[in-house]
């Protein structure tokens, strides 16, 4: 019967769809695992002062970022060109977390804001939608905000670890970041909410600077000796 044939054709489509979703989920799970490993490794930044220490940490996670790039390549292959947004929700969270970790790594190495392109390169994804599997701007910005909060914690621990110049530089950096975000007219609610918490990070670091200043603990050179990338 003709109708039956038509419908069994339909069924194939439906099945393929379902299977694809499963595969994507599995690929994303792998990415989450790697992201977790990177994050755990980078936690060591809070334990000890010194640029060599930080560079060592960044070095340690390089192979993990390679793995991320491979895993994104696998994922990207599964996503037909036009269906990025069909499954977007599945990897949105992990891409935000990886954007955060990449931007943090850039900051620890060069003390500057990661560029969108370089962050995308670290993850092995594109910046522009047209070019393939990409990182949405919103997700990149979410990553930056998460980084800001981690840096405010870093400022506190750097003092304990004996690096009182660090908070001054972080404070300046977060101030710039804050000004940048203020320029944005945020529609995305999640982003806006996350942005609200940025000012607390800024204030926290500034109060550390204050504490150090009134005790004359800020090294004179703190604004200058930052490594340049």
């Amino acid at each position, binding site marked *: 019967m003709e109708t039956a044939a038509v419908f069994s054709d339909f069924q194939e489509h439906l099945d393929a769809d379902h299977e694809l979703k499963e595969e994507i989920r599995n690929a994303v799970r792998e990415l989450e695992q790697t992201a977790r490993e990177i994050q755990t*490794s980078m936690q*060591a930044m809070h*334990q*000890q002062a010194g640029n060599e*220490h930080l560079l*060592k*940490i960044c070095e340690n996670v390089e192979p993990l970022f390679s793995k991320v790039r491979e895993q994104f390549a696998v994922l990207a292959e599964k996503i037909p060109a036009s269906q990025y947004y069909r499954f977007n929700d599945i990897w949105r969270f992990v891409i935000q977390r990886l954007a955060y970790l990449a931007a943090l790594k850039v900051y620890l190495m060069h003390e500057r804001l990661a560029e969108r392109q370089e962050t995308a390169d670290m993850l092995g994804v594109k910046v522009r939608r047209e070019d393939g599997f990409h990182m949405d701007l919103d997700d990149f910005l979410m990553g930056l905000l998460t980084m800001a909060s981690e840096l405010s914690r870093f400022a506190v621990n750097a003092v304990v*670890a004996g690096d009182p110049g660090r908070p001054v530089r972080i404070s300046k950096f977060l101030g710039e970041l804050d000004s940048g975000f203020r320029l944005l007219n945020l529609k995305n609610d999640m982003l806006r909410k996350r942005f609200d918490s940025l000012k607390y990070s800024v204030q926290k670091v500034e109060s550390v600077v204050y504490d150090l200043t009134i005790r004359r603990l800020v090294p004179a050179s703190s604004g200058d000796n930052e490594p340049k990338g």
Partner: protein
Amino acid sequence: NRAKSKCKVDENSPVIQAFYGYQSELDARHDKYERIVKLSRDITIESKRVIFLLQRCAGNEDQEEVLTQALTRIKDIQKTRFLPLALELDGEDHYQFMRAYSPGLQEYIEAVSFYHYLKYSQLVSLTAVQQDLQFSRQDAILHTSPGGASGADSTASQPGASPQGKPAGGSEKKDDKSPLNGSSGSGTQTSDQPSNKTSTEAKAVVDSSEEVAAKKRRNDTDSRSETVVVSVPPMEFMLGIADLTGELMRTAIMSVSAGNLDFPIQACKFMRVIHDAFMSYGNTARELSKKMWTLQQSLQKVENACYTLQVRGSEIPKHMLAEVFSASSSD
């Protein structure tokens, strides 16, 4: 006073050591859970297919052939899905994974009880359903290795098994522990069955009052060495039965258009029995109450179908009716 290069996690810390252990335990459990969910999903899909098939009985066409086909498929689900599931659950507290396999189990019960009703006009019993889901270890070797996809005889062929081979280790342990119990009381039955299991399974769905009590007793003792089982808690059984009424309703409604005069009336009576029973259970179990509303709706739909048949039939003598339908369906 600060340790020198702790870039990475301190592997020697007792805390870290302990957590490595926790990690593997959590992962193993999670993997098993995932495998069970997968099996459950397959059971659901295949049971739904059986149900679709059985609904063709509404049309009166090739009833016997449909039933035979359905039985073959039910047996197939048992062998290729429930047996691996039973092996996964072997030695575990089945309730720990109930949420993972409950959807599949309920859909399976729905299918089996639907089959049973169409074949015998009777409600299947819990013991019969439970009996079908009890397997001897030999079955595992005999039936599942050819199946490939569902292999449970060796670790490697288990679907999604973790590379460390945890699950197989688990079942081996059971094997070590229990051979001595194999010859106790009901043991003979167990060792008799495996060879002709496939043929008796069919019967199990059919006759539900025999030797089940014995088998049940056996489950409660730890003589499970020779058999593995997927537990069917009474609540899951009942929830499956509740869903059965939905299928009965659908079939009854289709029967009306097929001019089948008996099925709706018969099904209506049967559903009233189920309905009244559920009504009498009341609010003791929330899961039941949740299904009650749907059940009530299904019953009323069937009642309306019977009513439609009745008022329709009033316009023409009964004996002419079948004639009318045989005419219109051959059209």
